[in-house]
């Protein structure tokens, strides 16, 4: 287990470095600088501005400086929000984004697994068709279509829930964002759970258990659930990436002041450092959580460690 854990951790480091290098080079390969659109400055002031942001140094030196900053948790100054560093902007916006994302993941896991297990146990019945049909819709229809339609129905027409973050208070304003964010993941998880359950239910040892007279409830509880749900672990990584992507849309639609909102504002304002910083931040979160999932998976399933 220790060897496995060390290998995995060592494997994640070059990925993180590569991600930072690619993102950094992408920004610095751009034609023109971040201050090109502003009024023309006298050359000496322009030089001062460039020196302040270290833009006058050679590229490798800039990269090393930036990398050193990232390792210390410093993502540099924002080009547009002049009084803030990128790290401060992220830190301020993170709590609400994290609450939103964590709730959506929990909801997706709970509902997705429950729906998948039920559909598999009632295979080819109306219930099963309902679940698979819903899953198909959940996978096909993007968050930015679902979220506005939810607002239209539940906030504008029915007036049950607040349409935006500022329009309400307390937990009520989280209901729609969390559901909109969770829907596609519920759909994917339900589909994967159903397929995996059916796969395990038709295996030889389950037939043996049945032949020995064990009831369905006991079989599912003691023999099927764990091996059927365990493969889902490998979907958690993509699910987290999906939730992060979705949160950008959801925060935009509901006006939630989270990290995704800053990301889009930064992208529209050409705030290079902010977009670069958040991209790296997101990538590192995804890599770190994937690593955690990998380690947990290896801990729970010895076959994975052996590979």
């Amino acid at each position, binding site marked *: 287990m220790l060897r496995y854990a060390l290998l995995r951790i060592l*494997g994640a480091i070059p*990925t993180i470095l590569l*991600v930072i290098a*690619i*993102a950094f080079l*992408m*920004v610095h*390969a*751009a*034609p023109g600088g971040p201050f090109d659109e502003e009024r023309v400055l006298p050359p000496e002031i322009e030089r001062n501005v460039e020196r302040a942001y270290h833009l006058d140094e050679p590229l490798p030196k800039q990269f090393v400086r930036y990398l050193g900053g990232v390792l210390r948790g410093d993502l540099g100054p924002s080009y547009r929000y002049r009084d803030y560093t990128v790290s401060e902007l992220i830190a301020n916006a993170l709590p609400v984004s994290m609450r939103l994302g964590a709730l959506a993941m929990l909801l997706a896991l709970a509902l997705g697994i429950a729906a998948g297990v039920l559909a598999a146990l009632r295979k080819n019945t109306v219930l099963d068709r309902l679940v698979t049909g819903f899953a*198909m*819709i959940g*996978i*096909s*229809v*993007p968050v*930015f*279509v679902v979220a*506005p*339609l939810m*607002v*239209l129905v539940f906030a*504008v027409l029915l007036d049950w829930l607040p349409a935006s973050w500022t329009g309400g208070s307390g937990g009520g304003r989280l209901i729609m964002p969390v559901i909109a964010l969770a829907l596609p993941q519920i759909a994917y998880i339900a589909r994967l759970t*159903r*397929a995996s359950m*059916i*796969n395990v239910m038709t295996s030889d040892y389950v037939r043996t258990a049945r032949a020995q007279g064990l009831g369905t409830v006991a079989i599912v509880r003691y023999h099927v659930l764990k091996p059927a749900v365990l493969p889902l672990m490998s979907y958690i*990584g*993509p699910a*987290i*990436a999906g939730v*992060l*992507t979705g949160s*950008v*849309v959801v925060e*935009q*639609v509901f006006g939630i002041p989270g990290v995704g909102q800053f*990301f*889009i504002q*930064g*992208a*529209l304002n*050409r705030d*290079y450092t902010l*977009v*670069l910083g*958040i*991209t790296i931040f*997101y*990538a590192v979160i*995804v*890599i770190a959580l*994937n690593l955690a999932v990998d380690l947990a998976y290896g801990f729970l399933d010895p076959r994975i460690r052996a590979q």
Partner: protein
Amino acid sequence: MRRFPAISSVIRRLKGSRTVMTCLLLLLLIAVVGIIGPLLTPHGYADTDFATRFAAPTFNELHLFGTDELGRDQFARTLLGVKVTLFVAVIASVVSLGIGVLYGATAGLFGGKIDAVMMRAVDALYALPFVFFVILLMVVFDRNFLLIFVAIGAINWLDMARIVRGQTMSLKNRAFVEAARLTGVSTAGIIWRHITPNLIGVVIVYITLTIPQAILVESFLSFLGLGVQEPQTSLGALVNTGVAHMHRAPWLLIIPAGVLALILFCFNFLGDGLRDIADPKYKV
């Protein structure tokens, strides 16, 4: 080992599945309507008319889907959106097809250490939130239209690479490839004559599943205002406009959202149906 069934048998089985056929026909219809769009309406997609802003859908003056905040005909704009969305998706899928097939076939053919390293890289890339890198690219290179195609294509090749690699691995040890090698056919010749034709079936299936993913990314970017720019439009950009005016003119949201959902739904259904036919091990 499973041989990909001949095209004719796939078509025969396709005809047996009513949902898949319905989706196929619907998509063809949508594509045709999108392409011949300008012939179907007297209004241009960029013609503004401030006298009739936010008109509800009406046969009066043939504003079938109403008008938007600048009085532009929403029917003409939706047709343009369909065309742009499908166009971006097809180009992006071709890009992802190119990268995926090349990468997957190389890994599969060489095998061993090269394969291990290449596929480990795919695993590592798999979980990255690529969309953010595309947005970074859009910011840096100023929303270049061509770049959108390439960037979207470049993020969707991973599945294709995996599938093609698996297929190549199983193909390269088959008797007919061995026979070709024994009779002195070169490696390039083997790839061209024996491997590629056998990959086409799987590739078609996965292209059908890649297109909706490409549509999703493109409309996501356009929805956020980072993709297709005015006066051009795409379904994602139209949904974005619809959100801004949903209180006053809900049809501006509902129609493009519905069309987009329908296209994505059909592609996913079609892809799933094709995969079930081509590769029954996925079917439960």
